[in-house]
């Protein structure tokens, strides 16, 4: 199933030779390990990030998300494994690599006494081909704060300045470590729109998050990491077999109908819970066909009819629970 979704998304395998002049893979990671003393934070992680995709690393706190991202950014050294970011090893990529990536750290401050436009201009000076300062400030929606000192910015405004500083060098690849943590719903929606705009510009985006709705909305591909290992990967819709797992069909018996009136095919897999009939099935289309034909033949509605799939949250909790129970 995972292989099928991969083909659908055209994510190339890590061992495909890159075509000359156009590298289709932005990041490839193979057997990545990281130890701090005796603690193994990452225990052999393998994935690839397609160019132009939004790739999400999802997992509970302490799972190894930030460690992974900081190894890709060149902030940390790995203990073992192969890592390639835009065709370069982040440990040795140096200025060439750092000139092509933009980083939004989970928490990083600003010089308090500089204004927004001063600090954006300062960061522009590090790059060969920076974007226009005003354009980037407008993109993140800080026009009105252009002359404000950074110490006067609100939390959300600081996060937008974070993004501006990551974008000023016109990077091909952008790392966003928990970009909307602590945002109100409105600010999150604005942020998501900004991130979707970046994707439309052809940027590759790697984001970490523990918000499932964020991942559902933004990501093309999700890797779920728990306790230093990958426990699942896939598109948000197919993650953990979400698209093919059991569906639940739930309804009330129509007035005047009894349990024994239900068609045999439905009754076999049905149970009664709190006055609802609940059918667990891997073939919801066929069950619904039989069920609705039965109801229509009796001239009645199926009250409160719903078809449920496990939510991304159900799948996520299930996946990370399993990993936590492993020794």
């Amino acid at each position: 199933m995972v292989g099928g979704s991969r083909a659908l998304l055209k994510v190339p395998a890590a061992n495909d030779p890159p075509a000359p002049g156009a590298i289709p893979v932005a990041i490839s990671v193979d057997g990545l390990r990281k130890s701090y003393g005796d603690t193994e934070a990452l225990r052999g992680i393998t994935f690839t990030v397609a160019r132009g995709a939004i790739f999400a690393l999802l997992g509970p706190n302490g799972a190894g998300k930030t460690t992974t991202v900081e190894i890709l950014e060149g902030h940390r050294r790995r203990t073992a494994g192969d890592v390639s970011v835009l065709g370069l090893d982040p440990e040795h990529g140096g200025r060439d690599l750092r000139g092509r990536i933009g980083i939004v750290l989970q928490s990083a401050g600003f010089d308090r006494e500089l204004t927004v436009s001063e600090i954006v201009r300062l960061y522009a000076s590090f790059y060969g081909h920076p974007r226009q300062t005003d354009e980037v400030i407008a993109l993140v929606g800080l026009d009105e704060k252009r002359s404000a000192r950074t110490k006067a910015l609100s939390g959300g405004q600081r996060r937008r300045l974070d993004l501006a500083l990551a974008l000023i060098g016109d990077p091909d690849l952008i790392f966003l470590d928990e970009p909307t943590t602590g945002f109100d719903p409105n600010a999150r929606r604005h942020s998501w729109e900004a991130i979707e705009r970046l994707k439309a510009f052809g940027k590759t985006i790697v984001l970490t998050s523990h918000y499932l709705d964020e991942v559902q909305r933004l990501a093309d591909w999700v890797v779920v990491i728990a306790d230093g290992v990958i426990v699942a990967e896939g598109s948000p819709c197919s993650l953990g077999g979400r698209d093919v797992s059991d569906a639940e069909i739930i309804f009330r018996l129509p007035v005047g109908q009894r349990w024994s009136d239900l068609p045999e095919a439905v009754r076999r897999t049905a149970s009664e819970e709190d006055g609802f009939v609940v059918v667990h099935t891997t073939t919801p289309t066929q069950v619904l066909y039989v069920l609705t034909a039965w109801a229509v033949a009796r001239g009645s509605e199926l009250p409160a009819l719903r078809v449920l799939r496990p939510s991304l949250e159900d799948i996520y909790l299930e996946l990370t629970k399993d990993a936590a129970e492993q020794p």
Partner: protein
Amino acid sequence: MTAPAPRAPSRPSYPRLVVTQVGYQTLLLVRSPAGAFFALVMPVMILAALEFLHGQESIAGVSAAQFFTAAMIAFAVMNAGYITTITGTVIARDDGILKRLHGTPLPPSAYFSGRIGAAALTTALSVLAVMLVGLVFYRIDIDASLIGTTLLTVLVGVLCFSSVGLAATVLVGSTDAALPMAYGSLLPLCFVSDVFLPAGGAPGWLSIAASVFPVKHLADALEDIFVATPGHAALSGTDLLVMVGWAIGALIVTLLFFEWEPRPAGPGIRRRLARLSTTLHARLRHRRRASHQ
């Protein structure tokens, strides 16, 4: 924004990077109230206080003002060089500003040069203030032919003290500890190194110990210029060489050990020293690996 077109890697020139960094660091220093106070106000304030207390005396055969002006120029160099470099750098490190910078193509050496250059600019302002106060209020004599020697000595001094400041950040655990550790290391040396008063009565071992450190050499070099009779060899080669030696040593320590990431709260100095050896080991191994590739 448009889709990224393939482009030749191009970079801003190194001198431009350094000039931008110097401008930015200087702006930060003069805008931050603490930085401006320590670098620009404090030496003048202490000069006025010393002059008020000892103004009628004569020291080493010249007026006290003459001696104290030289001493406070030295103190200005140490404040703008050493103290503000330590506090500014540690604050930037603990706020995550350095980590963010380290993720950009800015070369580390350009950042260090920016710090040192900004310290030199601020020192120039501070020295100018001390000399003006000395000239206007206390009528000190400055031999015009010695201006060049003074400038050279101040320049070597600020290079030395800001480099030592950068290296010292390796030992400072947190923003809270920066100022106490900076003055805690500087002031005792000032007292045994002829900065506030000539240490004529100090025991011999103490002045020998003091002569290891650059504080005494900067103070002596400047006092030679201001106190000596005109015509006397004012340029003290040995003093300058010792300061250059400290600068080189400090820059080596900085290149090997400098940290760009905020410290996790509270490791004691012993654990910090243990971590330094791990860092050194890892960096040397990393260099070796890089040179093989």
